[in-house]
């Protein structure tokens, strides 16, 4: 889960990493109040989870509270790369002498962590890495030893930070590791880290990504979830504990196991090319076991998506045998009918694996005309794409 700048900086503050003081708000009036409290010039910053805010007009300087309100009015509602601004961060306008870059992130390739530092901050770091790699110092951070003060000091020296800010920057690097471990983050990035004209070293911006697997041990992380940005069907699926992602096509997909479902999306997209570009409408993994209860919740979600024209249920019976899966589909259709749901979309089923013949017999005997059985995954994908396209093609 990616955080907004204001959320990231709040976590920095909690773990004693120095940030520019500020507060988040949603209206121009609130922006005026915050600017009044801070006193002096402020920066009004759009809170969006994308880069390039400055260029898009999402970051503005304001000399006084009235101007802060005016700038807030300009920025609220702005569309920045598809993200509409509804929240603003109003912060003290630091007098910047220099801009640096520091970060720590999960390093999948090396199965540890990676810390980076550069005195060329405030610009896209990928740019620095590509054009002047010697200006970006990278150091492996051992998962057990962590970011020690010794490692941090070595990094700031190697990155040629000015002597006067070396200690403060090293302390912030160690602080970022505190944020990483205490909050179960997979990325903490400060760009820019600034030296102010009055000699302070502060995080002017902040980026944090949290590990969803660790939410169970951080109660406050639930409050950081951004419900505004989530698709309503994804929200509902989340409430039902379903592993669902909304996509932009017409074929509803239900399968068991993340890899098989990803593969199903691909196979449907290939087959759909033949029918005017029919594509998958969602990712939905009902888990290896594919139980009847989860199957009916899944069917409910997918059938109620107005974009869906046909559904593909693709299950491989491994741990659960196919007769249980077929009974699950039958039970799910029964449950949907009992809930009063009007099912009118065709459902193509491919069930294979353990006890497949018995499973297919159960579905054939069920005899629901909307449910169609196809033996292989590739043929089923073709059939469902054809059904979704309709007689005229897409």
């Amino acid at each position, binding site marked *: 889960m990616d955080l907004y700048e204001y959320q990231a900086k709040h976590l920095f503050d909690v773990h004693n990493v120095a940030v520019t003081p500020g507060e988040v708000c949603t209206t121009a009036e609130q922006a005026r109040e915050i600017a009044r409290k801070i006193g002096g010039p402020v920066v009004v910053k759009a809170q969006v989870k994308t880069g390039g805010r400055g260029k898009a007009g999402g970051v503005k300087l304001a000399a006084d509270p009235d101007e802060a309100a005016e700038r807030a009015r300009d920025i609220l509602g702005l569309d920045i790369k598809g993200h509409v601004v509804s929240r603003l961060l109003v912060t003290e306008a630091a007098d910047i002498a220099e801009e640096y870059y520091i970060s720590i992130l*999960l390093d*999948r*390739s090396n*199965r*540890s*962590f990676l810390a980076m530092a550069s005195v060329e901050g405030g610009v896209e770091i990928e740019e620095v890495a590509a054009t002047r790699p010697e200006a970006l110092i990278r150091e492996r951070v*051992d*998962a*057990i030893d962590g970011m020690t003060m010794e490692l941090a000091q070595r990094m700031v020296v190697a990155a040629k930070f000015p002597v006067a800010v070396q200690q403060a920057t090293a302390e912030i690097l160690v602080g970022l590791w505190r944020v*990483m*471990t205490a909050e*179960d983050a*997979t990325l903490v990035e400060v760009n820019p880290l600034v030296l102010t004209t009055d000699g302070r070293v502060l995080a002017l911006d902040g980026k944090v990504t949290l*590990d*969803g*697997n*660790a939410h*169970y*041990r951080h109660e406050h992380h639930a409050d950081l979830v951004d419900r505004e940005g989530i698709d309503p069907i994804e929200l509902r699926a989340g409430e039902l504990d379903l*592993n669902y*992602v909304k*996509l932009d096509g017409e074929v509803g997909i239900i*399968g*068991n*196991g*993340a*890899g*098989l*479902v*990803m*593969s199903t*999306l*691909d*196979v*449907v*997209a*290939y087959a759909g090319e033949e029918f005017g570009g029919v*594509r*998958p409408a969602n*990712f939905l*993994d009902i888990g*290896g076991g594919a139980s009847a209860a989860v199957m009916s919740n899944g069917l409910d979600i997918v059938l109620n998506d107005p974009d869906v024209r046909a559904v593909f249920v693709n299950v*491989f019976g*491994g*741990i659960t045998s196919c007769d249980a899966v077929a009974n699950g589909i039958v039970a799910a259709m029964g449950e949907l009918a009992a809930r009063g749901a009007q099912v009118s979309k065709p459902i193509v089923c491919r069930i*294979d*694996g*353990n006890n497949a013949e018995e499973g297919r017999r159960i579905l054939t005997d069920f005899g629901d005309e909307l449910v169609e059985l196809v033996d*292989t*995954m*590739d043929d089923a994908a073709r059939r469902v794409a054809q059904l979704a396209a309709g007689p005229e093609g897409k």
Partner: protein
Amino acid sequence: MSIWLDSKSRILVQGMTGSEGTKHTRRMVASGAEVVAGVTPGKGGTAVDGIPVFGDVATAVEQTGANVCVVFVPPRFAKAAVQESVNAQVPLCVVITEGVPVHDTAAFFQYAQNSGSTRIIGPNCPGIISPGLSNAGIIPADITGRGRIGLVSKSGTLTYQMMYELRDIGFSTCVGIGGDPIIGTTHIDCLDAFEADPETDAIVMIGEIGGDAEERAAAHIAAHINKPVVGYIAGFTAPEGKTMGHAGAIVSGSSGTATAKAEALEAAGVRVGKTPSEAARLMRTIITGS
């Protein structure tokens, strides 16, 4: 022969007394695997279907000669469970548990590396099976039998699908390495082991979006693997920035895409199937010559 798991494997199940642990212990036993011990802290002295349960791994290993741990404990206990198996110097620890915080995985992986005594497979994986010899995890043993194909996959159900498609040919060993951002055993580890295994003739490698493990495996294949490799990659239609089921399955910006992975594999001489069935057909051609 097979890789890492054979008829001499003596399996210890951590979390055997939990519902998943009990269920899959029975399945492993039914498939002919030798399950010699269970471990659940506080439940030492009890038994599951006559298999003794111990309070800690060290005692269980000492009393039963277990040499493979299979971990079914809930995510919050996974780190301690793995560290315990490393401390007992168990050579293979298979972590089935899904939902382990990545900081915990990074820490227990480093812990195992530092000790040098334990290979970790997983977490969030279906385990490893050498059909007809042994079975450590949750891979169904009745899909296929012993043969000469080696299989390595990030995905559980795609592993089963591939085993099913090639069930008449059979497999030497199938390894589900898991779809988390950090995993104990990689595609490359498996490729090397299959290359060295005299009873494996060809290798199927299944990957998915996220990270660069497949690209690295491709470079490794070009330099070090002489046996034929067939590949399959899932996730061509996955949108940028969305986690697709597995914690590690995410395209970030322009990195981790299925297209880049498939291209890297093809450039390394790997035949890549567009669908799992096509990959299976490619492998069938290699093995049977038709």
